Structures are given as structure tokens and as C-alpha cells.
């Protein structure tokens, strides 16, 4: 995908003012994404960022790339089709835990199943930030909010779900470790198939429990001793289910399987966006009806 002059961080510098709270974990994610794209030498016009709604959904506005900022929970279907239409684009879908695992849960499962060549970044702050602090599908059990006075009754483990769905790349990063996250994103973008990266992202306004400090005390790199094999699904399932005192980050599960665009038989052909329109060719079907 490399063309033209060297890509610099300035190429991704946006003039838009952020609506994020000062100190928000999203800033680290934004910097990691920009860094990954620069490291990959990917010019902005070859990148498509597709997002839903929520604070995570606003990220594409704070960098420079092609953007389709759609509906709450729906970035994956739009991203899937955009990739089918133009496989030349690096398509990155961006979501939050409410957007991706709540409203978009069905699309999440089927996108993993389909294995389109997409990157999916889910900012997981375990709370609904933009609507001011309700529980999300990943909120820790018993966490009380105004809408959940009895405490949250949810504790979805998205990475375990992803491994169960045989998602071909399952990773987890931390908004507070930009270099590690950028490396993870770069690997995901290069991966042929659907790559999920869940990003632990402290919400400094509404989640007083899962703070930067809370995460720093718990996270560890899954491959720190060089022995972890992300190709082992059973081991990956175990790591993906781990949550509490110790929380693994890094590539949890990775394997190769057929990519949707290849499977459906469009990969050897001209991009759909370049396919010619020739009404006269349809005449060849008319005789079937006489």
C-alpha cells in the first residue's frame, strides 16, 4: 500500500478540537493509532476509519483519514461492505464497549465469523461515558450507577467470546502504553483477516474504579517470557477469560483462516469500485425469458 513520499505524524495532525475530557484514555489510543499508521507508512488517503457513536466514535474526527462516522453499534457492517467495494483501502473500525458489544453485539459476532480483512478497535472503558455513566456490557459485576443501583449484572468477556468465535486475531492493549498499543495496531492492520483489539481505556469521569492506576497494577504482557503461543486456541481461551488481579495484554490469539473477500471470489478481480458499468451487456439475459 506504500506510495509516494514518506509518511509523517504531521500527515495525521487534525485541526479539529476534541470533545474528550482532559486526561481521557482516548488520547492515548488516538496517538497509538496515528503512530501505527505512520510506522506502517500508510498515507491517510488509503485509510478508512469507520466508527459508530459514543466518545470512541468521535476518534476519526481527531485524526486525518477517510471517515465514515455512522450509527451507534453499526460500524462493522458498513466497514465490511466498504472493504468489499474497495479492497485497496486499509479499513479500521472504531467502537466503544457500548457501541461494539451492546448495540452492535450481533454484528460483532458475525463480523468475526465472516473474517473480513478489517481491523476493529474497541475502546473499553467499562462504562457508558457519553450518556453519563451507566453500566456497559463489560462493567465489573456489582458496579453501581444511577441506572444500575443494584450494581451491574453484566461481565461479558469479549476476548473469550472472540476466541470462541474463532476470530483470527484477538489482541488487547492499554491506552496508557502507547508504544505497545501502536505495535499491536500495526500488527492488526497487517493481519490478513478480522483483527480485534480491545483497548483498556480508563474513563476518568465516570469510572472511578478501573483507573490508570488500577490497570497498571494488574496488566501484564502475555508474551513477556517469550513462551506464550497465540496459535493455541485452548490456551488463548484461558488467557482471554482472565480478568481481575491479573489482566493480560498483547496478542492473545492469532491464526490464519480464509478471508471473506477471498472466499466470496472477488479477490482475483478488479475492485468493485473499478468495475465498469455497461447496460448493454444485460441484453444477454433477455433470451432466458422468451
Amino acid at each position, binding site marked *: 500500500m506504500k506510495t509516494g513520499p514518506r509518511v509523517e505524524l504531521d500527515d495525521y495532525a487534525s485541526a*479539529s478540537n476534541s*470533545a474528550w475530557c482532559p486526561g481521557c484514555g482516548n488520547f492515548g489510543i488516538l496517538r497509538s493509532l496515528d503512530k501505527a499508521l505512520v510506522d506502517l507508512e500508510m498515507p*491517510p*488517503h*488509503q485509510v*478508512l476509519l*469507520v466508527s459508530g*457513536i459514543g466518545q470512541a466514535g*468521535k476518534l*476519526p*474526527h481527531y485524526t*486525518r*483519514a*477517510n*471517515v*465514515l*462516522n*455512522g*450509527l451507534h453499534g*453499526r460500524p*462493522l*457492517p*458498513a*466497514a*465490511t*461492505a*466498504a472493504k*468489499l*467495494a*474497495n479492497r*485497496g*483501502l486499509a479499513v479500521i473500525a472504531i467502537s466503544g464497549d457500548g457501541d461494539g458489544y451492546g448495540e452492535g453485539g*450481533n*454484528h460483532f*459476532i*458475525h463480523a468475526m465469523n465472516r473474517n473480513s480483512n478489517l481491523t476493529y478497535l474497541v475502546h473499553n472503558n467499562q462504562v457508558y461515558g457519553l450518556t453519563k455513566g451507566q453500566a456497559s456490557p463489560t462493567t465489573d459485576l456489582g458496579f453501581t450507577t444511577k441506572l444500575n443501583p443494584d450494581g451491574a449484572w453484566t461481565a461479558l468477556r469479549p476476548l473469550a467470546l472472540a476466541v470462541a468465535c474463532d476470530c483470527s486475531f484477538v489482541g488487547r492493549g492499554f491506552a496508557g502504553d502507547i508504544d505497545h498499543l501502536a505495535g499491536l495496531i500495526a500488527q492488526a492492520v497487517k493481519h490478513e483477516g478480522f483483527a480485534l483489539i480491545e483497548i483498556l481505556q480508563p474513563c476518568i469521569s465516570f469510572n472511578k474504579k478501573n483507573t490508570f492506576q488500577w490497570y497498571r497494577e494488574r496488566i501484564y504482557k502475555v508474551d513477556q517470557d517469550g513462551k506464550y503461543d497465540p496459535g493455541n486456541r485452548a490456551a488463548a481461551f484461558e488467557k482471554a477469560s482472565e480478568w481481575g488481579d491479573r489482566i493480560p495484554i498483547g496478542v492473545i490469539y492469532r491464526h490464519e483462516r480464509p478471508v471473506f473477500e477471498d472466499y*466470496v*471470489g*472477488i479477490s482475483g*478481480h*478488479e475492485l*468493485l*469500485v473499478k*468495475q*465498469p*458499468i*455497461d*447496460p*448493454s*451487456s*444485460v*441484453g444477454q*439475459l*433477455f433470451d432466458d*425469458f*422468451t
Partner: protein
Amino acid sequence: MVDLNIMVGGEAGQGVQSVGSVLAKTLLRGGYEIFADQDFESRIRGGHSFSRVRVSRRPVAAALAPIDILVALNEDTIKLHEKKVPNQGIIVSEISKTGVPENSAQPMLDIPFEKIAVSVSGNILMTNTVAAGGILGLLDYDFGLFETVLRGEYGRKGEKVVQANVDAGRAGYGFAQQHRPKGFKLRLKPSGPSGKMLISGHEALALGVLAAGCKFVAGYPMTPTTSILEFLADRGREFGLHVVQAEDEISAANMAVGAAYAGVRSMTATSGGGFCLMTETLSLAGMTETPLVVVLGQRSGPAIGLPTRTEQGDLLFALHAGHGEFPRAILAPGNAEEAFWAAVKAFNLAEAFQTPVIILTDHDLGNSYYTMKKPDLAKVVIDRGTVLSDAEAAEAVEYRRYAYTRTGISPRAFPGQGRALVVADSDEHNEEGHIIEDGKTRRKMMDKRMRKNGGLSRRIAGPAVIRRQNPVYNLICWGSTYGAVAEAARLLEQRGIKAQVTHLKELWPFPVRAFARTLAGGVKNIVVEANFTGQLENLIRAETGVSADGHVRKYDGRPFTANEIVAALEGGA
């Protein structure tokens, strides 16, 4: 003048549809004009279903109620339909299986379908071919044409299957010729082939989709538009079109938006229930100014309603679907030919105005077979609207997706086309596509989008009018009801009553002026539509201030017949 109505009835799984379609094609090849439709229940086997074939020398586009030949594959068919067979008509069945009709004066032809099938081919599955052959023998039609149709139909299954069918057909044909009741005078003589197509409304629409250069379709199977998805999945690939079966209609619609944003002509097809789920995305297309074509094939509602039956109950839903306000177009073709051209136009409007376009069809239009001239493909114009050229996109560093313009239409560019970055947003946004909240920009952007309505209105066709001098009635209709209404006008004329027909095939933006010109003083304006509340009648009142003088409405899930409309008018509709 030949105007023959054949009905083949039986239970689901007995091959009622295949008898109907083989007959229809054989008669088409003799130069006849055909209209064929089916009535089936939402089940795989059992129940009662029928297929009707109407044969004429002049164009026909609706079923007539009286049946000249009733082919009964089971007893129920006789019980349910024998009263619709006039005394010069005939009932054809295997009497040992179906029994004799109550009215024993009724001409009957007893053809032992199964016995013949088994004795000729050893295969009970040939019963359908025996039946079709029997009807053609009864009519003394050209067997050679029947044989060519059978060869076309079964050719892919090999010569053995073809020959077995031909033999079975010939046996049925010969039996009927030998045993034809003396009083039965009707004969059909083929002329040369007309070269016309026999095609369902949805097949014609799908051909239009291909001709329009659609490259991406996403859908979730739902009667009655599954046929469109399947046709395009089967035939689209050679035209560079790709079909995705999505996990649900929400996904399907968002996929269509994603592909359209990326730069291809894109579509989804569904029914009312699926369209409910898509309304959020319709609104997204309105806000992001993404061309989105949706085929909404209506069936009886609410909720699951009558899944395999027809209604025109979603006009106002299509008109109001989606939150907020945005421009849209609604097309409602009335037959196969109009369905073809509606598809072509839908893509042109969607891209020219960068907004959703809904094609309203229904179960009746979608599944009925019409005789249609081959469309003149030289007349298919592709209007992709205002799009940056590759050279412009290459240099457009400061590209603004939502630039303010006089027409409300901002030039499009596609991601990856050049250095132009394409920012499309569901939030209210500025010209660059970035989120805003200030009132001034909101108002300007809303004004910009809604300005498209002016141009869109100018592209919407007025009603098609079948005029009569000094008519008593002006029969106003929309969509699939057209054929039955036109037929009703003809029946009325035979009784000395003149009726004008005003057919709205494009409904939104409502063609106010063109519609007003169709109204004349002293004429009874009667709105004929297949719903309970009179949605078109209400829309006309809302848009023009004109109140209709009466209406004919139907909501039993069955398509209108001309006879019913005439009867309703005589009863003082």
C-alpha cells in the same frame, strides 16, 4: 377475441407453479400475451395453492375472476373454485382422486394424470408434465412449442430426463385430444413468436438493477424480495455485482451504505418488517448524503401479517420512515416493464441527489408474470451525479464533502480515489464533514440538504393517464393495482361507462401539479388501493387539498381483480 383464464390448483409441493409456468411459456412462444400469478400459503407442503395463467391476443396485466379451465390436482381445488367456472368452461382432473364436482352439468375432462405418468415414464413426478400436456391437448395447441419449452426447462438435467418429460407431456396431450368433451369449443392457434419476455415483476426489477450498474447488494431473506436477492446472487457476478447475505436487515442496510460511500452503486431489498429495522439507516443515508436504494416489497401487515400475500400498506411508512427530515424519492412501478425502469431510475436519482430512494413493490407485482417487450438498453442512461474526476480527486487536498451549493448537491469523491479525504458523518457536521453543534451551521446544512427537494421534484414523473372522452369515473391507483384498474376501465367501457385511469408510478416528491392536471370537473375521482386506511387517498388530500369522491379498498391479502373493482363501483364505491 381470445381471453382465456386457466387455473391450476393443488397443495403445496404438488408442482402447481411448475405446471403454470410451463404452460405460460409455451403459450408465450405462440405469440400470446400472458399474465400469470400464483397464490400460495406460507408453508412448504400441504394446504391449498394455485397458479393462474391468462392468455390473450392483447396486453393483459391482471387476473380475471372467471376460470375457463380449472385444473384440479386435488379435491379441495374443485370445492374451492368450481363456482368460478362458467358453464362453457371446463374442469380437468383425475376423477378417481378428486371426485366429481357438485354441478354435474359442468363439462369435465377426466385425465388419469398419475396413471399416465407412471405408465409412460415410471415416475410419478411426471404428473405435472402430463397435466400441462393435457391442457395443451384440450386446446389443440402446437405440441412442438411445448416440447421446446420442456427441453429448455429440463435440458440441464440430461437427455433422459428431457425425453421422459416429452413422453409424459405427449401422453397427456394425446389423451386430452381423444377425450375432449364435445361441447368444448375453445382452441388456441399459435402465431409466430412475439419475441417478448415472460417475466415476473421482481425479475424485471433485478434486470434493471444489473443494467443500472449496481455492484453491491446486501440483504436478509424475506418474502417477497428474496427472489431479487437470489436472482442477483445467481446472475450478478458476471456483471461485477456482489451479493452479501447479512446477519439481519440492520446490517444489510448499513452494508449498503458502506459500499455506496466507498463508491459503488449499492442496494438492499426487503419487506415491511425488514424495512422497520432499516429505518435508522435510511436516516443515516439522509444525513450522510449517501445514495441508498431500497426495494420495499410490501406484504400484508402489521407485524408478520400474511407473509406470502399482498398489500399496499406501506406507502405512508416508506414516506415517513426514519427520524428527522431529509429528502427522499419513492417509486412505485405498476408492472414488470415499469419495475425494470424504476430500478434504473432509482440508482440515478439516488446518486444524483445523494439520498435514499425507495422502490415500493409488493407480493403481487413481484411474483406475477407479465409479458414484456425486451427493454431498449440503448435508452438506459447512467447518471452518477456530481463526482470528482480521478484527476480532481488526486489533487483535492482541501476537499469538502458537504460543500454548500445552490442545488444542495455537493460533489462526491470516493475514499482512495485520490488525496481527497472523504469525511462522512451521521452527526450534524460542517462542510468538511466534522461534527458541529452550533445553530447557524446546523441551519445552513439542513437548508443545503433540503434544497435537493427542488431538483428531485423536477425529476419525478407525473401519473400515467389512460384518457377517455367525458369519463364518468377517474380511477386513481398506484403500484401493482394498475393492471386490474386498467382492466376494470375496459370492462366498464363494454357496459357503456367511461372511466379514465390515473396511475401514480412515482409518488414522492408528490407530483402535485401533474396530478392536478389529471383532475376534471364533473368526474368521480375514485381511489383504488390495497389497504384499509386509504393511504394514497390521504396523501392526495394532504398534498393537493383534493378529496376523492369515493374509493375501492381491499385488504384480504389477495390482489385486485377487475371484476371486483367493477362490482364495487356498481355498488356505489
